[in-house]
């Protein structure tokens, strides 16, 4: 018998007392020499900050969670993941899976964060190459923001809308 999945519902606005946990955004110690700090902002279709989103970053050996603040800002501290092999044998550039929950999102959104210093690997990444439009594709690549720091904004809607993936 096939069991269809239970439907999704929004995380709503009032999860901030429940889902965050101590050091949730730091998958590694910020003092780790390989630690990268990723900062970003979640914006809605009017360009306004989304102050009640919950983001999760997933890589093969780490998980981090961050609630946005009043300015829609979030951050993660983690190590750059290793390149992966796709199920079909092709190489995948190092990336993070990023999940976004928020009031007004009846289901989560899923995007990917790629690294700006991986141009050669990004150029042949099978998932990045599913996005033909260079401007849309650029929403998936973080920007350098100083030593050990990257910038990755998530635009839910409108100009420069982030590319989201079906799961």
């Amino acid at each position, binding site marked *: *018998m096939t069991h269809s999945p239970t439907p999704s519902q929004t995380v709503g606005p009032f999860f901030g007392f429940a889902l965050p946990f101590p050091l949730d955004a730091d998958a590694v110690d910020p003092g780790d020499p390989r630690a990268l700090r990723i900062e970003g902002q979640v914006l809605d279709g009017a360009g306004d900050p989304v102050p009640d989103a919950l983001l*999760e970053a997933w890589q093969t050996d780490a998980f981090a969670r961050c609630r946005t603040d009043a300015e829609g800002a979030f951050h993660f501290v983690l190590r750059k993941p290793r390149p992966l092999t796709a199920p079909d044998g092709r190489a995948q550039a190092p990336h993070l899976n990023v999940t976004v929950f928020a009031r007004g999102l009846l289901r989560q959104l899923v995007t990917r964060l790629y690294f700006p210093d991986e141009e050669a690997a990004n150029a042949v990444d099978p998932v990045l190459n599913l996005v033909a439009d260079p401007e849309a594709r650029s929403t998936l690549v973080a920007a350098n923001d100083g030593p050990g720091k990257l910038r990755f904004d998530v635009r839910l809607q409108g100009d420069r809308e982030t590319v989201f993936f079906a799961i």
Partner: protein
Amino acid sequence: MIERRQQESIDPPYLYPDYRSTVLRAPRRPLVQIPPDFHVMPGPAFGRVPVGELDHDLTRQHDGQPLGERIIVSGRVLDGDGRPVSNTLVEVWQANAAGRYADPADQHAAPLDPNFTGAGRCLTDSGGSYRFVTVKPGAYPWRNHHNAWRPAHIHFSLFGPEFTSRLITQMYFPGDPLIPHDPILRSIPDPRGRERLVASFDFDTTEPEWALGYRWDVVIRGRSATPVEG
């Protein structure tokens, strides 16, 4: 692929204008399809989330007993084949019996309960079962439209065996007169999908002289690695 098509009629769309907050937050571009097995899955992703011995009992997190109707909510987490998903994290949160969240963002003029926070966690057992003790949450107004009230509900967050299993949803209570009027629940196009979110009152879960029991099973996407016993 069949599963994905079925899910389209079960899951709500991103844009559902009757739920006003979707209008500026729903992406307008089509989602890009990638094969589900392209997603990585960390070892137990939720391993960093602390789960305390009493986190499943929301009535024992303070010195006194919370006000309200004590209830037990229990059920199983199943995968797409109907197999139990053991040892997976279930997080819940809810309003108190008066319909107020212990969250600074909630400004509803209903009382807070010093003996109730309304957040819990547990891991499913070897049979995929979870169990929470709590109080029945109250309905509350939410300004989405004139005289808008959310039906009583408990938020659930689940992980499961794969990245694509991740699910956040809400459980509702049988017989709630607000259910047919709730845009968040009505965003699910298929009435059978909406029914999936309503728990059943259950005498077997009910504990005499103590608490009413509700049963609610959750099916998540993906395949559990747990072999079927017997």
